Each structure stands twice: as C-alpha cells, then as structure tokens.
C-alpha cells in the first residue's frame, strides 16, 4: 500500500470504569481503503470505531487523522470531525427537520455555505440514493432503509475524507439491508475511504480491501478478505467464523 495514510491509531486503550474494552490497538487506514471490522459482540468493534472520531474519548493512545493527533489538547475537534463522516446503527436522523434540512443544516451552519448551494448539493445527493422525491418529508415518513440512506448522504454533504459505518444495517428489516449496502458499495467503488463495523459477512468479504477481526479488545487478525475468510490463522477467528458462516 503506497497511498497516503489517513488514520493512524497508536496504542489505543479505552476503559469504562473497571471494564477494559480496548486493550492497545495499533492500526493504519490508508486513503481509498475499505476496511471492515468483524468480531463477536462485546469485542470492542463499536468502541474502536467511535474512538476514531472521538465520540468515545480514549483512555490513552493516539488517533492521528491526516497527520494531526486529534486526541491531544487544544485541538478544534469540530473541524476534524467535519472530515470524518459517521453513520450509526440507529440512523439518528433529526426528526424535527425535513429530509433536505437534515442534509443542509451542518454545511450551512459550520461551513458557511449558502442555503442555495447547500440545497443544490443536497438534492444531488438525494438523487444519488433515490430519495429526491422525499426532500420535503419529515423522517417519520421514511422507512428504516430510507432513513439510513438519508443518514449517509447527510454525512457526505460535509465532504468527508473518510466514512465510518457503525453496524449500518443491524437495525434494518432484512428486505432493506440491500438498498443500504448498495449505497455503501457505490461510495467504496468511487474511492471513498470507508471503515465499516458489520455483521454482514458476505458484504465484508465482497467490499473490503482488508478485514480486521477483533476479539477481547484487540485486533486478533488482519488481512485480505481471502486470507481472513478462506484461510484464517488465529484460532479465535476460526472459531468465530465457524459460528457465523
């Protein structure tokens, strides 16, 4: 991999009280790379991805994003977070705003983009995910899959350099999983750097450049989808895959 490093994680530790969730993680995410994180529940996957944009404050360690340790003092975290999009399991769309406003609120407030420009961009994004006819609806009128597609373009409207997906399809009805995965696939194909925590093994296998297997607060094994899924080395990986595949 010769491309630029976008996120570098050094000795990341996260405790919740007496509970040691992350026990020292070192990892590098390169520009344009699609990295999936798999592993059993409670392995620390979600905590790990939430540390990448400091939604969880690490107990210790460095999160170096585009050359800056964003876990150090005196950092304007908001500016960095604008470059790190995040999509959540439970969508977290803003229920009191229309679909269009959901997308434009952050760019107009934080990047001082004019309303017209923000609206124009938002409609382009909505077209990309097939929601342009819903632009004036409130989220309560949307299905789960539509909400998640909205959440994805809301993050894209900030023009991030990397997208984090925290179990983006886990709260969806089965028939809606595909429409969301297709959007993520399109982003990945277009060169967006993606980090995806997922339980969709087939999806992880098909979309990823690299798969990380996490268990017990550390990355137990890392490799290409072929290595991880066809020829896992770590006994824990083997055991996990034998349960889910």
């Amino acid at each position, binding site marked *: 991999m010769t491309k630029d490093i976008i996120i570098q994680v050094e000795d990341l530790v996260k405790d919740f009280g007496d509970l040691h969730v992350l026990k020292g993680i070192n990892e590098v995410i390169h520009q344009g790379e699609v990295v999936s994180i798999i592993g059993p529940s409670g392995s620390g996957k979600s905590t790990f991805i939430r540390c990448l944009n400091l*939604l969880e404050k690490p107990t210790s360690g460095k999160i170096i994003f585009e050359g800056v340790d964003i876990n150090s003092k005196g950092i304007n975290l*908001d500016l960095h*977070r604008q470059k790190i999009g995040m999509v959540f399991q439970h969508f977290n769309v803003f*229920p009191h705003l229309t679909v269009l406003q959901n997308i434009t*609120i*952050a760019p107009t407030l*934080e990047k001082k983009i004019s309303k017209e420009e923000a609206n124009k961009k938002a409609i382009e994004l909505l077209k990309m995910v097939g929601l342009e006819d819903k632009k004036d609806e*409130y989220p309560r009128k949307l299905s789960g899959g539509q909400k998640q597609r909205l959440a994805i373009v809301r993050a894209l409207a900030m023009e991030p350099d990397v997208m984090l997906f925290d179990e983006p399809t886990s709260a969806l009805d089965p028939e809606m999983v595909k429409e969301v995965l297709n959007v993520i696939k399109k982003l990945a194909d277009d060169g967006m750097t993606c980090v995806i925590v997922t339980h969709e093994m087939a999806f992880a296998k098909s979309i990823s450049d690299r798969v990380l297997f996490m268990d017990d607060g550390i990355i137990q094994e890392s490799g290409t989808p072929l290595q991880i899924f066809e020829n896992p080395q770590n006994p824990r990986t083997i055991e996990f895959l034998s349960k889910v595949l």
Partner: protein
Amino acid sequence: MGSSQTILEVFINNFPLFMQGLMGTLQLAFITVLFGTIFGSVIAFARMSKFKLINFVVQAYVEIIRGTPILVQLYIFYLFLPMAFSALSNVSEYWFVVGALIMNSSAYVSEIIRAGIQGVDKGQMEAARSLGMSYKNTMLRIILPQAVKNILPALGNEFIMMIKETSLASVFFINELMCTQKILQSSQYLVWQPLFIVAAIYFVVTYALNQLVKLLERRLSVSD
C-alpha cells in the same frame, strides 16, 4: 350579617373582588413561572456543566429548595431579607413574595428542563457532533427544539401547580385569590361561603388548564 347569605349570593355580590383575586393569582403564577423558567434554564445548564464546583453548588441549591417548605422560604424572604439588607427596606413586600416563589419555581423548572434535554435520544447529540457541529449549534438547533416537546407540557403543569402554591402568599396579604377570602372574612364576616367559592374557582381554572396541557401534549407527540 354574613352567615345567612348563600354561596351564590356572596359570589354575585362580590364578583369583582373574586375576579380581582383571580387576576392577582394568575399574574403571580405567570411572573413566577416566566422568571422561574429563565433562571431554571440557567440552573439546568449549570447542572449539566462539566465543572465539578458549579455542578456541586447548583445541585445543593436545587436540593435545598426542594427539601424545604415553600412557606418557610416565603418567610425568609419576607422577614429576613429586609432585615439583613437595609438597601432592600424600601422594596415593596410584593417583590419579596415574588422573589421567593421564583426561587422555588426555578429549582423545580431546572429539573424539568434538565429531564427534557436528557430525554432527547443521545444519538441526536452524537450524530450532530459527528458532523462537526459545535456544542452550541447542536444544542440550539438539534437538542433544544426536540426537548421543547418534553418541556412545554411539564411547564404547563408547573404553572398549574404555581396557581395553587401562590395561595400561600395570602399569609402576607398579597393580592391573589386566597387573599380575597381573607378580605371577605374580616370585612363582611363571611367565613365559609368565600372558602368554597375560592376553592371552586381554583378548581375550574386548574381543570381547564389541565385539559389545555393535555391537548398540547397530544399535539406535540403527533409530530414525532
């Protein structure tokens, strides 16, 4: 002369007096809840602050006010403050009573506001912050507009509570509904009739307001 009159007669004969009392009560409750809300908001944010000292002081304030009777607070304001601070000796008694009621209400309202804000799904805060929105913008544009739905009906209930609580101000002869009863008792020797009239007016007003709050609650929950 008074004891032979029927309730209806007393009500009709002294209608303006009762209405004046009711207006006094509504005014007192409104001023109390209005300023209680303003100070209560400040207290609520101070309680959610990450500075431990502010947190502690504000929490103590809320606990003390909620843990002592409102009548004691009224007496402290009414008797002690003018004694302790001579600069206040020219201030009308009305404002000491209002001050005590506002202080009392602010503690309760701060809890209403805090619960309203914390009742908003924490995923909303995370989503907004992950977009790079500042804490201030997130609060003003994402959290508070949603919290208002939890807060408004509870504030309505606080207003209804205050309509009843302000009757304690009659101890200090402040113009409000309960005081009307005292006036009629001392001036016309009417004891029991005004009591029931006053009770009925309180009930009608609070019942009507209660229905309004319920309507508001239903309206607000529709848009979820």
